[in-house]
């Protein structure tokens, strides 16, 4: 097993899929010789050439639409949106088109494509380089939405996404691109889209998180365990659409208490759905209110450091929220 960063694992996943299947190609802004602004595609242009690693015009809706057309023609596009904040021009193509093609053609026209994009705050990116966008797209049946938080999952889920016959929105926690390192199995493997991952087992409180927040939650839980007294379980949801209901209900059955952590704005953020599922199907399992620890309900993450930090959840805030719930 090699230890590598999240972004190296992603690159390796794309590389292997391109080597495996000549129908796989990459398009997006600066993905070519520049290797992407985060270097996710570095070296791939050199290796696979301009025909398969295609610098797109600066135009997100067509990056996605070209991907849709190519997928309809049975290619396997990987479309990169440079920052999640810039996916909004492509909203119509994703929501009205990619997600609805299979349904609207009664299962005849498929759109096997991957849309990769870095998301999330805490990187001094201000209002337009920090956004979380999962809330918008997890409301769209026909799409799958995936958020890896470890290098192993990043690579394995990406490979599954490329092979999936449906459009998959693949959200990459950019703050973790280089900050998150971990073991990646040697050789071929995939991680299935669907099941959540238990990042840490525990008995007192269930913490549901994904992306960078799954890491922070694990850090918080470890700290509380070291400090003694509180044994929190951390579930890394990994696939947000479809949601792994079985996993969240099983965890709450054990702990009776649920904290949901996400860095997006609170209102109508993804955790609302997790809470709603638990408040319905898990009602009799609950011993305490369902808490959400989230980004603030302001339009986006501000640039200047004190405001940014106040916006973002972090391990300390998560630990405090777990403790409060444990003591309920």
């Amino acid at each position: 097993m090699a230890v590598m960063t999240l972004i190296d694992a992603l690159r390796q996943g794309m590389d292997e899929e391109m080597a495996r299947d000549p129908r796989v190609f990459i398009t997006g802004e600066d993905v070519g010789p520049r290797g992407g602004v985060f270097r996710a595609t570095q070296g791939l242009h050199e290796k696979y050439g301009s025909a398969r690693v295609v610098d797109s015009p600066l135009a997100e809706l067509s990056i996605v639409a070209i991907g849709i057309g190519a997928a309809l023609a049975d290619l396997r596009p990987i479309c990169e949106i440079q920052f999640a904040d810039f996916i909004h021009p492509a909203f119509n193509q994703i929501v009205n088109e990619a997600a609805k093609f299979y349904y609207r053609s009664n299962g005849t026209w498929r759109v096997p494509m991957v849309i990769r994009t870095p998301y999330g705050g805490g990187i001094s990116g201000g209002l337009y380089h920090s956004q979380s966008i999962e809330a918008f797209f997890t409301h769209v049946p026909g799409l799958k939405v995936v958020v890896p938080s470890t290098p192993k999952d990043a690579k394995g889920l990406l490979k599954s996404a490329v092979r999936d016959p449906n459009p998959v929105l693949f959200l990459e926690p950019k703050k973790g691109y280089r900050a998150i390192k971990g073991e990646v199995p040697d050789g071929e493997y995939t991680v299935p889209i669907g099941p959540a991952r238990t990042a840490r087992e525990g008995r007192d409180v269930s913490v549901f998180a994904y992306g960078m927040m799954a890491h922070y939650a694990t850090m918080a839980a470890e700290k509380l365990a070291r400090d003694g007294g509180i044994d929190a379980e951390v579930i890394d949801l990994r696939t947000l659409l479809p949601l792994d209901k079985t996993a969240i209900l099983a965890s709450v059955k054990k702990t009776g208490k649920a904290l949901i952590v996400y860095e997006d704005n609170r209102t109508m953020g993804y955790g609302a759905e997790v809470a709603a599922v638990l408040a319905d199907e898990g009602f009799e399992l609950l011993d305490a209110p369902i808490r959400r620890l989230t980004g603030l309900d302001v339009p986006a993450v501000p640039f200047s450091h004190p405001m940014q930090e106040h916006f973002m959840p972090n391990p300390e805030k998560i630990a405090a929220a777990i403790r409060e719930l444990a003591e309920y």
Partner: protein
Amino acid sequence: MTLNRTAGSSAQLGEAALLEMYTTMLLSRRLDERAWALHRQGKIAFHISGMGHEAAQVGAAFALNRGVDYVHPYYRDLALVLAIGVTPMDFMFSLFGKKGELSSGARQMPSHFGAKHLNIISGSSPVATQVPQAAGLAFAIKYRQQSGLVDPNDATQPRLAFTCLGEGSTSQGEWHEGMNWAGVHKLPFICMVQNNLYAISVKMDSQMGVANVADRASAYGVHGVWVDGNDIFAVYDVMREAVDRAYNGGGATLVEAKTYRPVPHSSDDDDRSYRTREEVEEWKKKDPLIRMQTTLLNEGILTKDLINEYENRARADVDHAQQAAENAPYPEALDVLGAVYAPAEEV
């Protein structure tokens, strides 16, 4: 008013092709008229018409490798898809929303064409979304050819992507971005704008500051041409050129077919609020079906007898399709739940 068929590729069209073009237009017209009638009778909820656009559509279709080249149509393209192989039955099933309807299993409103076996892409309602997707289809064609996945001259494989929309819909950013890709990558792509002067009620001069949609091609490095869309041979001629360009690596073409919609926008519309009856009557004199009929009569290819025979056949086809659709069952309620996600495939 007759049509000019002395120059261009249309001069080469044989009698069989000419009659098939004529009967396709005729069938489309009669189906379309029946749909309006069914709506007036309260038998169907909605109809949106291709009437008046038949020459543009059939002229274009016959220039393509039908059923092979990718076609991404819009809601007026009844005659186009009939020319490619969609049947009156398919259309009637969509009007009535009956089980087994071809394009969508009756999930979509009528005239949202689509047929996988004919390489007709399933359409949606938001206008112009098909344009960058069609550029993507064309991109895939070029990709396969360049990477040796197919032979560029293999006529069993799609060699271009063809898409249509109305002139008003070129106001959308979607259109701009699709055209732009077609220009940058010199794609085997043809976009035909069926310019009927109105976007529902809004006149062309409120949609754009130029006189011809074809003028917009110069912003993209795409060949642009406009043509009398009611002259089926003129359309065929420019389309043949565009097809040859696409097949031979010459890049994309924007074809503007100037035409008119002699009926309201859809069965929900009332066009009296935005245009005069005189204008509509004036355009009806240029009816593309009558113009083709006159020309073929003049050329001796059509006769009064043949016309009657074709009329009878069209009526019989329409009657039969209507009957079958009326008698067919509706989808099951639970059909709503199917085909949300494609199942995993073998790799």
